Each structure stands twice: as C-alpha cells, then as structure tokens.
C-alpha cells in the first residue's frame, strides 16, 4: 500500500528531523534511497530544485516523492505526514507544556542531539563526496574518480573563499547553483 507507506515514512521524518535546514538531510536521503524512490544523483538534483524554490526541504521532498510515487493523493498524504508531527508537538507546547523548554531533562536530551545533527550533516556531505566525486559506493566496489566533478568542486570552494574575501559574506546558494550549472554545461558539453 504505497499511500500508507508514503504517509508513515514522511511522518517519521517529520517527527525525528531536528536542526532545521539540512538537519534532516541524512534521514531524508536514507528514506528515499532505501525505498528505491530516488537514486543518489536524482536526490542531489532534487535538493537543487528545493533550494531554488520556496519551502523547507522536507516538505518539498514529501510533495515531490508523493507525487512521483502516488500522484496527487500520494503527494497530499506525504506532505500531511511530514507536517503533522510539527503541528501536534507545537500545539502541545503552546497550549499545555508552556515550560517544556525549561525542563532540564529536555535540554539535556537536546544537548546530545545538537552535535549529532551536525555530525550527520557532515558525514552525509562526506559520503556524497566520496560517492559522486570519487565514484566509491562501498568496499565491494572499485574506485572510479570523476575528474570533472572534482574540478567543479574545487572551483566552487575557491569561488566561495574569493567571494567571501571581497564581499565579507558567503555567496547565496542560488548564485552558486546557477554558476555550477554553467560549469556543468561547459565541462560536460565539450
């Protein structure tokens, strides 16, 4: 039953993704890849789409996967699933547990979750880099470095530091996406 599966998987993402922004990236990646809903490359493509359109990654991902797997109803149920935990938890806090954030136990739990989320984002980035740039999937497969991708990665980081030096702030994600698109057309076109 695809509808129930979509709803439950995205319910879990909504209930357990801490940290906002890319905090949910490892859980979302695992879910969509292990269910065979997207490949690693398709997942990267979609993150770029999500960055260039309004809305949080988890909600965008739910709508997209829901739609491709189960049409408009699937799309609706997956989105409902990802939003529902937030809605219920926040209502409980706003209405009943007004002092939840003041309980030492809650803060102690969050103090463990915070570094964990950062580690998960970094490990996901490293995992993606070794699989996309170095072509390394796991110990059972051979290494197949992709020089063009490695070159693009290096150019992006150099641009990042150059931009930061001049403008004192990091370049916006959309500008970097457009720049990398141009690099892609140039490098893979010749």
């Amino acid at each position: 039953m695809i509808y129930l599966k979509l709803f439950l998987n995205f319910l879990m993402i909504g209930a357990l993704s801490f940290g906002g922004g890319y905090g949910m990236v490892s859980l979302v990646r695992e879910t969509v890849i292990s269910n065979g809903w997207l490949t690693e490359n398709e997942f990267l493509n979609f993150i770029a789409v999500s960055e260039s359109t309004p809305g949080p990654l988890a909600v965008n991902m739910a709508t997209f996967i829901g739609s491709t797997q189960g049409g408009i109803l699937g799309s609706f149920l997956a989105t409902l699933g990802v939003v529902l935990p937030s809605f219920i938890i926040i209502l409980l806090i706003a209405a009943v547990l007004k002092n939840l954030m003041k309980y030492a136990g809650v803060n102690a739990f969050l103090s463990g979750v915070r570094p964990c989320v950062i580690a998960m984002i970094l490990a996901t980035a490293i995992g993606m880099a070794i699989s996309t740039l170095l072509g390394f999937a796991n110990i059972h497969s051979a290494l197949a470095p992709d020089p063009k991708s490695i070159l693009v990665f290096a150019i992006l980081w150099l641009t990042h530091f150059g931009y930061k030096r001049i403008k004192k702030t990091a370049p916006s994600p959309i500008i970097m996406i457009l720049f990398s698109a141009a690099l892609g057309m140039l490098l893979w076109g010749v």
Partner: protein
Amino acid sequence: MRKEWTLFLTFLKIGAFTFGGGYAMIALLENEFVERKKWIEKDDFLNMVAIAESTPGPVAINSATYIGYKIAGLFGAAAATVAVCIPSFTVIFCISLFFDQFLSLTWVSRAFRGIQVCVIYLISFAGLKMLKSIKRNAFNTVILLSVIVAMLACTVFAVSFSSVYYILICGTAGLAIFFLKKLRKGNDN
C-alpha cells in the same frame, strides 16, 4: 474570523517568498508580526524561535503553528500551517510532473552534472557553519567524532543503520551525562 484570514494570507505570502529554508523566514516573520502588526511581543517571539529550532520538523512549519495558535487558537494554527505549505506544495507538484522530461534535455542534464556537485558543496558548507557555532567541549567533540566515524564506516562497509538511532542514542547520552552530573553533585553534599 478576520484574524484567521489575515493569518492565512500572511503565511501564504511568507510561504511563497522564503527561499533557502527556515532561517530566512524568521526575519520576515519578525518584521510582519512583531514590528508591523504588533500581534506578538518581542520576548514571546524569541521564545517561539527557540522552540521552533529545538523541536523536530521544519522551522517554517513549527513557527507557523506556534504563531497561528498564539494569535487565533487552534483554528489560527491550522490556517497558518496550511497556508505556509500551499505555495511550495503547488510549485513542487507542478515541477514533479515535468521534471523527468526537463532533465532528459541534453543541455539540462549537463547542467545538472555541475549542480549535483554544487549541492555537495552546499551541504558541506551548511555543516561546517553549524560546526563553527557549537560550543567546543569534550562531550560535543566525542559525539561529533563518533557519529561521523560510525556513519562513514556504515557507508564504506555497506551496513544499514538508520539516522533515527543516532539521534536517539545521542539524546540519551545527553540525558545520561546530565543525570551523572546531578548524582555526583548529590553525593558531594
């Protein structure tokens, strides 16, 4: 009814213009509800930001539900939450219908080879930025290193181990340290 309708329209607008995730939205919300409409006091707003960031789920959804509830109760919470989702739902749903055809254009697929690399850069940068903001102490360092090593080892050896467990284990570790400290303090007295 008027307040619910205003909430709905405001969050519809905010949902349509927040690119780049929840943090960009916080500034918009503050401008709208604290400074212009004066529906929420500054202190309460800061409290809301802390809650939205520490509870699971996207910051955008959490803040919509909280502000909606504060201003117009359960109905307000529902109006704000539905409204903030409508723009991205519509946009992504339309994209999902044409995305595969779009990607099959040669130039587009070439562009996306570069974009895929860019996404890895974006995620690395987001992680490094958060790493800079976290307190440097033994507990954080141990958690950071062990989770990174464990996750990478699972990738390399093709073992599947859900992120859910990392979150639960690390949260429990935080609790355990807290109770140990409390216990030690109790013994000293």
